[in-house]
């Protein structure tokens, strides 16, 4: 069996996110082969009921977002789909920046975000990790759970994601205008 099939079997069996590095180690193949196989797998899953989700270097499988209503009926645990205004603002920054420090979140929101960050973290929508560039602070990132609730396979699928990330922050105003032109609701 080829690497693509092995990867699919492992993802299916584990039912949890696995890193590219882990695949490479566990299967004893190079990073390039892992990456190529993942691309093929993604392609092959396109017309199926299962999708491949990606976040940083982690991969996981989930059910197709189009089948949301169907699968929700099979889900016993209650789903919380509510988001407060504070949560929306905070998630928007964390998703579109795809990893951000608390101080920057507070700076953009103009208020202390610790309570909101804790609540979102308890819900499993965000996670914090030590900043690789400065080990005295944390970086907050979206979790697979958050991508799942948004129905996207990776952050790049967010509407206007490239528009936002390809431009420089100081052009925020122009961007806001651009979004308006694109018909984005405020």
């Amino acid at each position, binding site marked *: 069996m080829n690497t693509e099939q092995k990867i699919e079997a492992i993802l299916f*069996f584990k*039912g*949890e996110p696995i890193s590219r590095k882990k695949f490479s180690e566990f299967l004893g193949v190079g990073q390039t082969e892992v990456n190529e196989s993942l691309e093929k797998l993604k392609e092959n899953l396109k017309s199926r009921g299962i*999708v491949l*989700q990606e976040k940083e270097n982690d991969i*996981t*499988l*989930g*059910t*197709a*977002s*189009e089948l*949301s209503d169907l*699968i*929700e009926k099979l*889900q016993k645990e209650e*789903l919380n*789909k509510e*988001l407060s*205004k504070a949560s*929306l*603002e905070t*998630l*928007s*920054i964390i*998703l*579109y920046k795809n990893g951000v420090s608390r101080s920057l979140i507070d*700076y*953009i*929101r*103009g*208020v*202390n975000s*610790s*309570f909101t960050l*804790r609540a979102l973290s308890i819900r499993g929508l965000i996670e914090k990790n030590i900043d690789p560039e400065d080990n005295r602070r944390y970086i907050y990132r979206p979790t*697979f*759970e958050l*991508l*799942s*609730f*948004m*129905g*996207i*396979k990776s952050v790049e699928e*967010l*509407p*206007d994601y490239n528009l*936002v990330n390809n431009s420089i*922050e*100081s052009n*925020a*105003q122009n*961007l*806001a205008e651009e*979004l*308006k032109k694109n018909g*984005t*609701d*405020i």
Partner: protein
Amino acid sequence: PFHLLLSLIEERKFFINDLSLAQVTEDYLNYVNKLEKQDSSEISSFIVIAATLILIKSKSLLPNLDLTSEEEGDIHNLEERLKLYELYTKLGGHIKDMFGEKIIFAPLERKNDFLVFLPDNRITKESMMTFVRDTLGRVPKKVFLPEVEVKKVISIEEMISKLTERIEKTLQMNFKEFAGTAKTKEEKIVVIIGFLAMLELVRQGILHVVQEGNFKDIIIKKQEADAI
């Protein structure tokens, strides 16, 4: 606070710049004065922003008023932050629309066919007690004391006092200028006097915040700082 400011600007269909900020300053200050009765942690973040708006407003009323480079930096900063805030609240609209609508579900927990019991030597009565105590010790207290904000509030109070003085001085110096444009002289003076009265109100609001904090830890910190 940004939400309030942004909605004031958007109500008027303005763009974010020092001109529009000057226009909404009074509405903003009025709102902050109404907030007085709320808890100090909330109002302090509003007042920090109010201080910068006051600078912008003062400058727009009195172009001759000299601002320090720090003050100019604050103004520039507020505009930038507001633009960022606007951007991310707009993007937040996408999140609101999409969240929970089309969910990708992770598989349910796979059932264990075989029974295993695999403990770890680190699980002992003593270690479990240590772990549970450490974990419980990290639960944050219910109230987050906004130490930093309160310190800022105190310095803003000083800043407003000084600014009031500076405006009054500039006003006297520029009186001739005002007299020169007779048409709008009275109007201008009324506006500036009104604005000064507003400043005084805000100053009282800040004092109120500081007094509110009197029985809390924060003020002890302030006194310590003063002693040094």
